[in-house]
Each structure stands twice: as C-alpha cells, then as structure tokens.
C-alpha cells in the first residue's frame, strides 16, 4: 500500500508541476532553480512558501546560489516528493554549526539538516557542499544516489541514507557523529571520511564498501553491520577504535589498515579476510591487528609478518 500511495502522490505532484505554466524560477534547461533570494523572499517552487525550508516535490532542481540559514534547527531543503534530482551545481548549503577537532566538538547543534527527504524516496543529490547544520548534513530515504558532495561540520551525521543507495565520491569531514551511514544493500565507492565523531562510514547487511578512505574518525573507520558485507580495497588509518569492523558473512580483502586505536580488523568469526596489510598503532595500548577467530584466507601482512593474527 505504501508503494502505491507513494506513486499516486508522485504522479499527482508531477502532473501538477507539468500543468503549471513555467514560472520565473525555471532555468533554461527546464530545471527549477533554488537560490537564497527565492528561498527567503518568494518561494522557489510552485508549492513552496517563502522562508526555509525550501520544499520541493518532483523533477530536476538546481541551485543557482549558495543557501544559508542561521538557525541550527532549521532545515534548508525538504524533499516531499519522489524522483527528485537535486544538482547543487557546486554551491554550498550552510548552517551556523561549526565543529572543531579533536572530537569533533560541534556547536550549536539542533534539529535542522541541510537536505532531508520526508515520506519519499528515489532522490539523487549531486555536486556541492552541505556544511554546518545542527543535525545531519543530508538525510535521504531509500534507493537514493548521492555523488560528488562534501558534507562537513554538521552536528550529527554527514550523510545518512536509507537502504539500496549508491553513494560515490562523497567526502564526509569533521561531522559530529558518523561521516556516512547507510541502510542495507547499498554501494559505497570512492568516498572519503575524515575526522568524524563516530565511524567514518557504516552500512548494514549486504552493503558494499570499495575503494574508500577513512581516516581519523572517532570509532571504526569502516563498519559493515548485520552481515554479508563486502569491504574490499579500502584504506582505514588512525581511527580511534577499529580500522574495519565486519559481521558474519563478510569478505574483507585488499585493504590497507594502519595506526588504529584498537584492532585493525574487528571481524566476526564467520567473516573472511585476505590480501590485507594491517599495522597496529605503535603508540596506542591495545592496538593489535586482527580479532581471533575470523577466517584467514591468506596473503595478509600483519605488523610485518604473514602470520595473522
């Protein structure tokens, strides 16, 4: 019933949008423009009222200026419809929060996010920066796509997604909690998480982490939870807890893991690992290479020797 209701809502929204004569907010390529002036003064979409949040429903939207709010509990853009493609076009959406390392300590915090989806899914967000919101930088629902975005100095997560999302080329830097946290069955590739308060990146069952870098975060660098994750060809260095954490059924292969505060690889006994280079921290007591009991598939280098753990 939810899916049918969602589709009905979307169709009604998009039909209304198409039926409406082009307004001054439509760009030359048909996209709906969002900028600070329309956000504050006029509303940016046909159904959007003046003031934040800018509320959008369907179709392609593009930023044509930076957006700035001053209230840590104020959301900048709220997506109320499905099939929204939001191109930040290199602009920045910013709030008043700033975060300082180590920690990081973020202040002020609040309930506002840079971009949030409400009762909808299938959103794509590309190409820009979301900085300084009291809560999450970006919080999007299922089956999203987020690419080429910097999320930084937000009070909670940098990027939080539902299940089945493709997250590529995202940089999550110095957010108050996790850099990137996703639901089940997503793909996270070519991302960077640096200096976040909790994990660099986390995903639930069936998630794929490939070619990511996760440095200096407050918990694990990369965490595959629940089971059946792929954690291959990543770098995890200098994280306060584990380099990589993975549950039953995970494969952990081809990673470089160094100088983390606890285990380099903290793995369930039914997880397998191979082709990794793991070096404990020379300065942190308790820093070791691999948890006992995980399935060693060979070809690992643990603190300079090929015997692991």
């Amino acid at each position, binding site marked *: 019933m939810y899916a049918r209701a969602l589709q009905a809502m979307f169709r009604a929204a998009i039909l209304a949008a198409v039926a409406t004569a082009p307004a001054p907010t439509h760009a030359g*390529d048909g996209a709906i423009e969002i900028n600070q002036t329309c956000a504050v003064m006029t509303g940016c979409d046909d159904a959007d009222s003046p003031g934040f949040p800018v509320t959008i429903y369907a179709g392609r*939207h593009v930023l044509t200026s930076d957006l700035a709010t001053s209230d840590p509990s104020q959301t900048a853009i709220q997506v109320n419809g499905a099939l929204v493609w939001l191109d930040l076009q290199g602009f920045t959406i910013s709030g008043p929060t700033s975060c300082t390392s180590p920690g990081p300590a973020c202040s002020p915090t609040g309930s506002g996010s840079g971009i949030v989806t409400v009762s909808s899914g299938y959103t794509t967000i590309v190409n820009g920066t979301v900085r300084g919101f009291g809560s999450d930088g970006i919080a999007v629902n299922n089956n999203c796509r987020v690419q080429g975005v910097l999320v930084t100095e937000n009070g909670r997560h940098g990027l939080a997604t539902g299940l089945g999302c493709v997250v590529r080329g995202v940089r999550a830097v110095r957010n108050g909690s996790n850099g990137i946290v996703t639901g089940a*069955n*997503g793909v996270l590739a070519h991302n960077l998480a640096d200096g976040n308060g909790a994990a660099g990146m986390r995903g639930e069952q*069936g998630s794929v982490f*490939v070619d990511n870098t996760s440095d200096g975060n407050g918990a694990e660098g990369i965490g595959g939870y629940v089971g*059946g994750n*792929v954690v291959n060809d990543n770098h995890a260095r200098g994280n306060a807890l584990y380099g990589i954490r993975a549950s039953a059924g995970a494969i952990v292969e081809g990673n470089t893991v160094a100088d983390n505060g606890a285990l380099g690889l903290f793995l369930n006994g039914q997880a397998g690992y191979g082709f990794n280079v793991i070096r404990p921290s020379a300065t942190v007591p308790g820093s070791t290479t691999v948890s006992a009991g995980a399935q060693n*598939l060979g070809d690992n280098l643990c603190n300079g020797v090929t015997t692991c753990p």
Partner: protein
Amino acid sequence: MSLNRVALASIAACLLAAGPGLAADGVIEINETRAKAGGITPGDAPGYPVTLSQPGSYRLTGSLIVTTASLSAIEITSDDVSLDLNGFPLVGIAGCNGEGATLVCTPTGAGVGIFAHAREGISVRNGFVYAFPGGGAILSQVEGCTVEDVSFLFNAGRALQVGGSCTLSGLVIDRNAGEGVFVLTNDPSPADSPSDDAVLRESVLSRNRGEGVFTTSSAGRDRFQIERSAISGNGRTGADLRTEGGLRDSAVFGNAQGGIRLGVNSQDPDSGMLRGNAVRSNLYGFALDPAQVGYTHNNVGGNTNASSGGVQIGPNVCEGDLICP
C-alpha cells in the same frame, strides 16, 4: 559575401533547419510540449513515442508522462544517439504492490520508457524511468551502449535490457516486475565476434520480481562482468549468467531462488570466476559449472541450501569455515 558571412549564414541555416528545440550547445531538447507537437526528428509524429531517428545528442528539459499503456516514451531508431535525461523522469502509469517474488504491477502493456532495437552506440544517462507497463529501457540487440546514473523503478516488465559490449554503472534498479538487467547477446557479425563483453558496476539491483541480472547468448562467446554491486531481495536468482562472466567485489543477499548461477544451463560450456563476493541469506549460495567456473576469496554463508559446482581455486569461507563443496 565574406567567408565569415558565409559561415554565419550556414550556421544560421542549420539552426533554423534543426528547429526550435536545438539548444545553444547543439543538443536537441525534448520536453512534454515538444513531444506533443512532434517533429523532434524526421518522422516523429505528434504525441508518444518521441522518435529519435537521427544520430546526435538529446536532452530532456522536462518530465515526460505517458498515460497510455501501449505507448512508449522514447523510441530510438538511429545509431549513435546520446540521451541525457538531465535529472528528469520518464513516467508511465503502472502501479506496483509487494516486492521480490510477491511484486505485482498493473497494468501491463507494450509501452516502455525507452525502446531501441538492433542499434549501436546508444547512451542513456542521468534520470529516472518509472512505472512503465512494458518495462523500463528495452535496448534490444543494442550493441555498444552506455547506461549511467539512471534509476529504474516500479516498471511492470524488465527494468533494463541491453545487448553486448555495454557499460552499465551507477544504476538503482528497484522493484520492477521482470529482471533487473537482462542481457541478450546474439550478434554473430565478424566485427563483434567472438566477444561481446559487457560490464555492470557500482549498482543496486533489489526487490525485482525476476532475476537481479540474467544474461544469455545465442552466438559467440560473450562475457558479462558484475563488479562492486549490491544484488538483494530479488524474486528469482540474484545473478544468473548463462554467458561467460563473473562477479567481483559484490554482495548477493537474500534472493529468493539463489545467489549466483554461472555457466549452468548455458548453450555452451561457459567459463567464469567469482572473487571477493559475499553471498548470504539466499535459497542457495551458488550453482556453478562443475569444471569451467573457478571461485576464490568469497564468503558464502547463511544460505538455506548448499552450494554446488565450481572449482575452488583458492580459499573461501563457506558456512563459517574454510571447507567448501
């Protein structure tokens, strides 16, 4: 008349000939108004489908909504067409309930989001194909295609069909009533034989009623590679490759009729490789050709039934230990 004036006159003539939908960058624009008017390319009749009969670059400047189950949104009848959905959706009229094996979509019909047959050099990028009664993008026997950053959702048939030599990446394919990706390679022409290699990368294929990925070939020895993708909750097998091929660095999770089939029920003895995958919570983990498919460094566990076939060419984790069938 000076050379510059001749050149300017020629350019102006070309622009006029191309019609009002030609953007400043030379891309031909497509939107609802132009679709209803017709004439986007020669032979394009008013209404749907929009027919793209000439090579070139095309870009949506608005959503296209098709309200007749038998009609497609866009039909490509030329080689070398680049279609940028530009963040807009193609929208049909199907509605779906359930997911995976229980997914039911109505109405069904002949209308699809994008259709092409026996063409080459087609690319589709950046948008959504949603709720079409006949399927999402049916690029039947299309060789050398590129499909990137497109979401296929709630279509009442297969989400995406391509031929050989295609590159598919950044796709989100969720809750379609057929296969997520269907690959049929059957072009025996000398230019393409013996290989029609294709690849799917960094994509999500979930909750479709059919297989997440199904490949088959009626000619040549074609290969389909899946890399860095999440294949979950589909109503049949996660990946059923009846061509040569392989999976690498992918998660195959919770598919109703099994995780991976490779080289089984193929017309020819197809070879392949599984490496670096997590295969979990499916009806079975894998079913592989007993002699021609190798596997190494996979984790296969938590599946209902035992895996079968294949040649273990390196260590794997199977049901929690290093002993595999």
